[in-house]
């Protein structure tokens, strides 16, 4: 399906969705965080979309905002989009978990929690995956400083 057709269908799923194809090869949908779970479940269940394969889920620190990027693929229709969700709360960022939609997200959300400190509602067991439980701070954030272990050029 073409990006325009995808955009038309996805636009009907929620409100205040932003679309862009600028400087990226995929159609990019920015979703308000309150609607993340409902829209994602429709992206998977809608018979015209069927995004069933979340092949890449990345945490992101845009400086002011934290967020997550979901790269989605449909194994039936072969079309692809990226979904972005952001939160401005850097002290206590909370997003909804999508592990019940794409089960691989359970693991990727652990990684994002570990490195970006984003907490996920309804995650079965949020824990430090790579770092020790007493580790302070979230290393992949842009404002993270660790003078002992980081070489800053």
């Amino acid at each position: 399906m073409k990006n325009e057709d995808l955009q038309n269908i996805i636009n009907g799923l929620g409100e205040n969705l932003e679309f862009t194809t600028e400087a990226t090869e995929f159609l990019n949908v920015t979703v308000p965080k309150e609607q993340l779970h409902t829209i994602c479940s429709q992206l998977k269940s809608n018979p015209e979309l069927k995004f069933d394969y979340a092949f890449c889920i990345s945490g992101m620190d845009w400086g002011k905002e934290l967020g997550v990027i979901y790269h989605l693929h449909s194994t039936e229709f072969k079309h692809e989009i990226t979904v972005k969700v952001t939160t401005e709360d850097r002290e206590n960022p909370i997003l909804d978990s999508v592990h019940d939609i794409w089960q691989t997200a359970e693991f990727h959300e652990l990684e994002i929690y570990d490195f970006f400190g984003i907490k996920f509602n309804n995650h079965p067991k949020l824990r430090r995956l790579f770092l020790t439980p007493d580790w302070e701070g979230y290393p992949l954030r842009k404002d993270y400083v660790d003078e002992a272990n980081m070489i800053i050029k």
Partner: protein
Amino acid sequence: MTDQEIKNKIKTEEYFVNMGPQHPAAHGVLRLLLTIDGEIIKNVEPDLGYIHRSIEKMCERDSYQQIVHLTDRMDYLSSNINNEAVCLAVEKALEIEVSDRVKVIRTIVSELTRIASHCLWWGVMGMDLGALTTYFYAFRDRELINDIFEETCGARLTMNYNAPGGLMYDIHPNFVKRTKDFIKHFKTKIPEYDRLLTGNVIFQKRTKGVGILTKEDAISYGVSGPVARGSGFASDVRKHHPYSAYDRVDFKEVLLTEGDTFARYQVRIMELWESISIIEQLIDNIPEGSVKEPTKAVIKLPKGEYYQRVEAARGELGVYINSTGAKNPYRVKFRSPGFSNLSVLNHIAKGSKIADLVATMASFDFVIPDIDR
């Protein structure tokens, strides 16, 4: 007392066992927290990070040429494929079209890497299940590939042969002849592998029907590579999103539907034949041309987001680069096949025996630096 009464009297209770981080079947420092009841696994919880080097954070500091060298250290058994992924992403962003010669050489070297990786996997798979001989057979053949690599680029494992814009240097004059000799040799060896391990009754009993993964679960858990194809999920990036010279060669995407450990094993063995076929189609007609397109000394990618995927030996490797136009990336994410494949382990190991977990893990072919990055 009757047997039934005795059985009712005996109570078992769940307890924790650490498998790893120093476990011979973990192939590196992977720690699994097993909750078991007798010999039955109730839950598997991976604990990672024993060799995490934060390559993604290091990438934010380094230039694009330097990033290529870091990727060797992720999945070191498909190092050339990792290098290729970053180079393709940078070339895509800069809109550089590399010459046909580069494309063909990259494909041949990547397929040799895949054969070397599958050889090692075959050796350790046998070893994990108690057949140590396979290890020596596999290393005998893998050694020949490493020799070709050493002559071509000086390194046997972490190759660094690709660079943004092409290759570091041209192939060695002996490359074509030695590769053909290897293919000729290796074609007589795969039947030997089959005779030694594939047909072995003990091996089949330990792998058939063990660790079954359905196609739906494979898709939902983001599984890729030979593991996914053993469950019938057509996920071969070489076929569905061709890069380099894969669009000009004729090869089959190996698909089996059983989804068990033996199916995953068979997929990799059949992929060896496909890799041989790809190399044979290309090796005689390596086109002439430049091996390196000129790039600036300081590469700056235009502002934007770039995603490039390749088929590494373990599955789909994705490189996500977010650039603000500076000389180093704003954010790099490696979608590693091992990490996504590991996420399904708990699901398929539940209810099986500990020994079956070892067989399942062997068929997943984990490389821990690929999971930890």
